[in-house]
């Protein structure tokens, strides 16, 4: 157990409680209110990581989510979490953290050798080498680079935690709970509108918690607490701490991640680790504050060199300091605050180095005005630095930490998410939000460039009032409490010139001033080229602390101003978001909803094997004891159906209720074949085309009454056909009287197929003559079954057998299948699944999804004559284009291998019996294949060029993918009962 040597007085940590945690296996203690970064700091740990390229030692740079350096792995196993910023990781008892991107240890990292070769590893060096010999890239160079690159690692165990998603609505979303955000939320909340106040910190208050400012008569943090108490007591306010608004999307939609349980060892049972909220906000105010920027100087990347405002925040809020002796390097007055606050905490501040010649004095320490830091020392952490004073002389000063302030950049990220461009503000030497903000978004406080506490309060209240005025709500101007209103006094200063050594701009990605210089030399001058060539700003912090510095260096090199040189806009997310949160509960088996057929429970009892068909689960086959291969099962189901009778749940086929005086006229335009004259009580096969003349879907339409049809679609296209029919109804022929309702779910429908199907159904259907004369092929009727249950009966056949489909209200589907099986016992009835269904339809030569593949026409399908040329229907006109009617167009044929032992594989290609085998000689391909237990041979359906004229031709069926080539004969696609006698029996 180490002592918290860098813990100071005051702060907001709860010294009354101790929390144990480990870093790289060493046990430390901290307090509630600590982050991992502050606790390690208090324990005197400065070295937390290694940089990406040179593996340079890295310590904490910043205080919040902008941290580029202190990335660690947390937890273990499925909860192992790479690249977590120690600065935002709340401490909890038992927290386990490890450093990353080092081997074997953080202190002794072998790849730190890269640093010795840094002069060879300049920006973009990899574009210039590793090209010879050619084969070495994938085999040697790239694996080496990949191993060295990357940061944290993933355990490859499944994440055990759940994630939720949710949807919130409000009049005003306030993003950030610093002084501006609190004031905005308070103003709006008092007006009675619905307010959401989201803050990424675990304790709202923003910089008020980090500063020693007074608001009114009380410390800023106390004022914040008082406001939060008032807000918490209001029903119209939702306070969301630990919630980062990560993106501003169209029309006032914001994404936010709430970290529900990241500060706990594990989420409570059933509760999520994080929630991804979609927030619908009428208006929003961005009060995201500002981020301090460093100054580039030689070896400015050592652990101990930190942002000044961060040092101050650690001292004031976390009661932790990076060292007992902290120097300050600044170009603005804010740096002086750091010195003053540290001195007040009893920390030794050896000096303030201010680049400004006219810098004001600081009480309690030496001021070097017009001076610069030109170098640092300390292998694994800062020990000393070298100054160049205004007169050019140098001086060395020992210190364990250096607080650097180069000024503050407003956090404009969200204002850029809809590609708004920030604009330059000379007064603070920074980019501020531009004119083209996301609609409904306003910006207040430091995010808008209002850097004083008074400015934050005033602009927060103002933004809220303006937003509410938009919405038509009157507000009362709040009494603004007194607060500091210091102007920003700053002399832009980006990097120290004329010193030896590399000066870092992007700490994580190891981009230095020299890299920018080289990019300029090689004409990678535009900002996007600069970023991409050097990787500046592409690290996990997205350039929050580095972009402007790089831009400033480039501006100097080009002789242009910074705004002339450009700006980069930011993209969502504001801070990185876990995949888990964005996926929510749509994971594992819950990835998609499951649709179950009405016979699902029964089929499960029968031991059915299920298969996914879209979102449906359908019984694929029903294995019996003793069957060792699925083929045995399927062959039995087919043979038994064709011999006696089989039953199959076909509920998944789409069913659309089409009613209205013009229902027939409507269907006549939807289908390629005619429907106007279909008699009541009859069913017709129908083929739908797309407007481009390609076959789209097929099914049947049953005319139950003059003004009432039931249309069936394929399972896959049920939703799409309905949508298209609604399009035709509403947009093409709005005055046809027709109404559409999807009734797929309402009816449980079963195919009853086979020579004994009539006999079976006669036992089920009440008082209806099912004889061939009374109820012929393609008849339909509304009937009752089992003593009065309403039902629909269709005499249609997909198998080619005498067959019916019977539909009952879905709740009776389970009972229906049981009744069918019981009634069928005497006929040796068999349930069959989708596999047998598929075999029988291939044997019969019926097209299905594999044939209706979106590129084939009625002609290809052999249904060319179905397309009526005497009426307007969708797809009719464009189906006549030459390219779709070539003399050698593909035609659907059947294939049989010469040797019944040879396989026919769907997806194999057809070649002439002799000649080359290549794409140039391709004659067609197999769409569907099966073993026909009736014919006792594999069979296939295929599209073959000019196939209708090639019956009897022997061809090679090649499948080089699996190394087979078999000889097949081209036959009719109707293998079984080609003249249809059975289905009409």
């Amino acid at each position: 157990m180490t002592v918290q040597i860098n813990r100071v007085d005051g702060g907001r940590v709860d010294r009354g409680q101790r929390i144990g945690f480990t870093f790289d296996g060493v046990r430390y203690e901290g307090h509630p209110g600590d982050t991992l970064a502050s606790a390690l700091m208090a324990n005197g740990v400065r070295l937390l990581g290694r940089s990406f390229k040179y593996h340079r030692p890295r310590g904490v740079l910043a205080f919040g989510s902008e941290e580029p350096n202190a990335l660690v792995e947390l937890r273990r196993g499925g909860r192992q979490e790479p690249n977590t910023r120690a600065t935002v990781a709340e401490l909890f008892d038992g927290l386990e953290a490890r450093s990353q991107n080092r081997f074997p240890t953080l202190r002794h990292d072998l790849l730190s050798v890269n640093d010795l070769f840094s002069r060879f590893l300049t920006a973009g060096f990899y574009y210039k080498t590793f090209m010879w010999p050619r084969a070495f890239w994938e085999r040697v160079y790239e694996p080496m680079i990949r191993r060295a690159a990357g940061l944290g690692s993933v355990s490859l165990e499944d994440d055990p935690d759940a994630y939720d998603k949710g949807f919130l609505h409000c009049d005003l979303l306030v993003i950030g709970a610093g002084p501006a955000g609190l004031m905005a939320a308070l103003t709006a909340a008092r007006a009675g509108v619905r307010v959401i106040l989201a803050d990424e910190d675990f304790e709202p208050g923003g910089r008020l918690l980090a500063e020693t400012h007074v608001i009114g008569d009380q410390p800023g943090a106390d004022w914040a607490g008082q406001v939060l108490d008032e807000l918490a007591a209001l029903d119209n306010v939702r306070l969301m701490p630990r919630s980062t608004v990560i993106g501003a999307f169209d029309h006032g939609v914001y994404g936010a991640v709430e970290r529900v349980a990241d500060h706990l060892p594990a989420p409570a049972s059933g509760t999520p680790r994080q929630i991804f909220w979609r927030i619908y906000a009428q208006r929003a105010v961005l009060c995201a504050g500002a981020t301090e920027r460093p100054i580039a100087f030689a070896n400015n990347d050592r652990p101990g060199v930190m942002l000044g405002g961060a040092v101050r925040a650690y001292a004031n809020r976390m009661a932790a300091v990076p060292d007992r002796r902290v120097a300050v390097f600044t170009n603005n007055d804010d740096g002086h605050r750091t010195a003053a606050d540290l001195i007040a905490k009893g920390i030794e501040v050896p000096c303030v180095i201010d680049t400004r010649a006219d810098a004001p004095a600081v009480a309690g320490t030496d001021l070097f005005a017009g001076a610069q830091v030109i170098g640092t020392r300390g292998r694994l952490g800062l020990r000393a630095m070298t100054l160049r004073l205004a007169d050019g002389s140098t001086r060395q000063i020992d210190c364990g930490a250096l607080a650097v302030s180069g000024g503050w950049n407003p956090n404009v990220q969200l204002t850029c998410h809809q590609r708004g461009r920030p604009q330059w503000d000379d007064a603070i030497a920074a980019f501020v939000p531009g004119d083209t903000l996301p609609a409904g978004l306003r910006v207040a406080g430091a995010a808008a460039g209002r850097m004083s506490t008074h400015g934050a309060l005033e602009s927060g209240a103002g933004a809220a009032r303006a937003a509410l005025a938009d919405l038509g709500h009157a507000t009362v101007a709040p009494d603004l409490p007194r607060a500091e209103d210091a102007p920003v006094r700053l002399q832009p200063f980006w990097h120290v010139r004329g010193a030896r050594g590399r000066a870092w701009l992007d700490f994580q990605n190891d981009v230095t001033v020299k890299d920018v210089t080289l990019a300029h030399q090689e004409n990678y001058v535009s900002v996007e080229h600069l970023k991409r060539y050097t990787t500046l700003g592409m690290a996990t912090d997205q350039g929050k602390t580095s972009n402007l510095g790089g831009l400033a260096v480039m501006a100097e090199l080009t002789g242009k101003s910074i705004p002339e040189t450009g700006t980069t806009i930011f993209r969502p997310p504001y801070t990185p978001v876990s995949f888990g949160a964005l996926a929510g509960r749509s994971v594992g088996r819950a990835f998609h909803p499951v649709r179950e057929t009405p016979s699902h429970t029964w089929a499960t009892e029968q031991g059915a094997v299920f298969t996914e068909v879209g979102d449906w689960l359908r019984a694929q086959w029903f294995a019996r004891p003793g069957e060792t291969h699925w083929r045995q099962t399927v062959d039995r189901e087919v043979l038994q159906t064709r011999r006696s009778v089989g039953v199959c749940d076909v509920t998944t086929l789409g069913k659309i209720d089409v009613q209205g005086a013009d229902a027939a006229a409507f269907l006549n335009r939807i289908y390629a074949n005619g429907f106007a004259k279909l008699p009541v009580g009859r069913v017709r096969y129908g083929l739908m085309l797309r407007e481009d003349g390609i076959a789209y879907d097929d099914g049947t339409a049953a005319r139950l009454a003059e003004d009432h049809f039931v249309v069936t679609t394929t399972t896959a296209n049920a939703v799409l056909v309905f949508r298209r029919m609604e399009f035709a109804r509403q947009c093409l022929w709005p005055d046809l009287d027709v109404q559409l309702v999807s009734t797929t779910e309402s009816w449980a429908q079963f195919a009853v197929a086979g020579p004994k199907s009539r006999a079976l159904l006669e036992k089920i259907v009440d008082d209806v003559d099912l004889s061939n004369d009374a109820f012929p092929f393609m008849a339909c009727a509304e009937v009752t079954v089992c003593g009065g249950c309403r039902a629909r009966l269709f005499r249609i056949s997909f198998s080619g057998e005498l067959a019916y489909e019977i539909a009952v209200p879905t709740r009776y589907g389970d009972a229906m299948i049981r009744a069918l099986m019981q009634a069928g016992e005497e006929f040796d009835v068999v349930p069959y699944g989708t596999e047998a269904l598929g075999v029988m339809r291939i044997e019969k030569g019926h097209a299905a999804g594999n044939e209706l593949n979106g590129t084939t026409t009625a002609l290809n399908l052999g249904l060319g004559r179905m397309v009526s040329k005497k009426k307007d229907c969708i797809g009719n006109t464009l189906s006549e284009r030459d390219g779709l009617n070539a003399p050698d167009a593909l035609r659907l044929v059947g294939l049989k291998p010469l040797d019944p032992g040879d396989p026919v594989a769907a997806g194999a290609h057809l070649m002439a019996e002799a000649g080359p085998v290549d794409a140039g000689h391709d004659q067609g391909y197999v769409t569907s294949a099966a073993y026909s237990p009736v014919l006792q041979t594999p069979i296939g359906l295929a599209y073959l060029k000019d196939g209708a004229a090639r019956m009897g031709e022997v061809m090679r069926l090649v499948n080089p993918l699996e190394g087979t080539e078999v000889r097949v004969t081209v036959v009719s696609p109707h293998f079984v009962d080609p003249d249809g006698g059975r289905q009409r029996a």
Partner: protein
Amino acid sequence: MIIHHPLLGPRDAQEFVYLGDASLIDRPDWQAEDAAGAFHDYLYLRDNPAGLHRELWFHEQGDRSWLVVTRDTTTHEITSVELARDVARARGRSR
């Protein structure tokens, strides 16, 4: 995105399915002289403007209305939403 449905008010665009240019309402006459050419232009050619675009959306997770939405393709701002059936009738479509 949010679409202000003329009957149902603001709805998340995720409830809708997008089709394309509202000119798809203007299906040509199949018996016209150059029906083939007219259908080609109707089905395949697009203005594809960078700016205001009248386009068809279907409220699939809603009332199953087809809507004509006028939206700026450079900013995504929506300036008007109409029932497509009304638009179709106004453009002379009937039976």
